[in-house]
């Protein structure tokens, strides 16, 4: 974690310096934009951290390992894919959840499948999608993405 933070700090400083050297005003504008976006997510982010902290206290580590861990097999994959497809969790909020799951013993396969279905398959937003693409095409897109998410999960499990 420390290493990760370190990378972000170094990259941010280097990019800021280059940007500042090229165009001072643009750089300040960029900072302002970044700050505005940060302000937008800060409170919801803190709230989700509270929720995850509570959930981790109530859900025993042993059941996370059992249902989403390396030994969970097809059941774990199915749980991850179905929960990810149905729930509508904003991306930036899903990452702390995913990281907590990994720390508690969930496998990369289930976490990657969960994340991918979360991002690409939308059961709740299906009616909206159908209005843009038509029912048949929207259904087809969701089904193909669901299959792709499982393939992605399995491949990541093989790689990592």
């Amino acid at each position, binding site marked *: *974690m*420390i290493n990760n933070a370190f990378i*972000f700090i170094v990259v*941010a400083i280097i990019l800021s310096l280059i940007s500042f050297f090229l165009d001072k005003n*643009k750089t300040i504008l960029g900072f302002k*934009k970044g700050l505005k976006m940060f302000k937008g997510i800060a409170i919801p982010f803190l709230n989700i951290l*509270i929720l995850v902290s509570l959930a981790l206290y109530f859900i025993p580590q042993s059941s996370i390992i059992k249902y989403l861990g390396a030994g969970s097999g097809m059941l774990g994959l199915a749980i991850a894919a179905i929960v990810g497809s149905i729930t509508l969790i904003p991306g930036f909020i899903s990452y702390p959840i995913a990281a907590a799951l990994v720390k508690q013993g969930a496998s990369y396969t289930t976490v990657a499948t969960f994340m991918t279905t979360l991002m690409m398959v939308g059961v709740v937003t299906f009616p909206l999608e159908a209005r843009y693409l038509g029912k048949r095409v929207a259904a087809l*897109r969701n089904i193909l993405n669901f299959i792709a998410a499982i393939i*992605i999960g399995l491949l990541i499990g093989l790689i990592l």
Partner: protein
Amino acid sequence: MKKFLAKHKQYIWLLSYLIATVVSFFFGFNPGKKVFGNFTQFFIEMITFIPFLFIIIGLFDVWFPKEKIEKHIGQESGIKGIFLVVILAMLQAGPLYGAFPVAYILYKKGASIKNIFIYLGAFSSLKIPMLGIEIGYLGIDFTLARTLVSLPLFIAIGYLMEWYLKDKNFKVNNL
């Protein structure tokens, strides 16, 4: 009063948690202390990289405005067309349902069926701000592996959709 509550719901949630934590520590309520331990760990994790990530995102936004790329969409085909829609998708932010209005614009501008679906795929999982958070939380290995595995699959889905919808009078509707 009701309006006030609805507007500040997120602050109220945060505040009640803080009060509950203070009370837990005051009375030595162990579960409360443990939950706060979890929370502190998550908070430190977040605060060490998220602010820097947003500096990077802000700079990206001013140096690579997506409007510039949008102008060229539809005119380019082949590998260059795919490349452009993927880049355009990566520069966006927000949930997937925000991508459909842009899909409509792409459709209006004459982008191919394949590229519209590649855009939707890339939008859902390759947005730069999200990749940044992903690196921070799950590490560069996971993020790289997921990106490199996902991209070919999206492109394949794009081709599949185009093949299937070719003679079926496909169109994207505007709401």
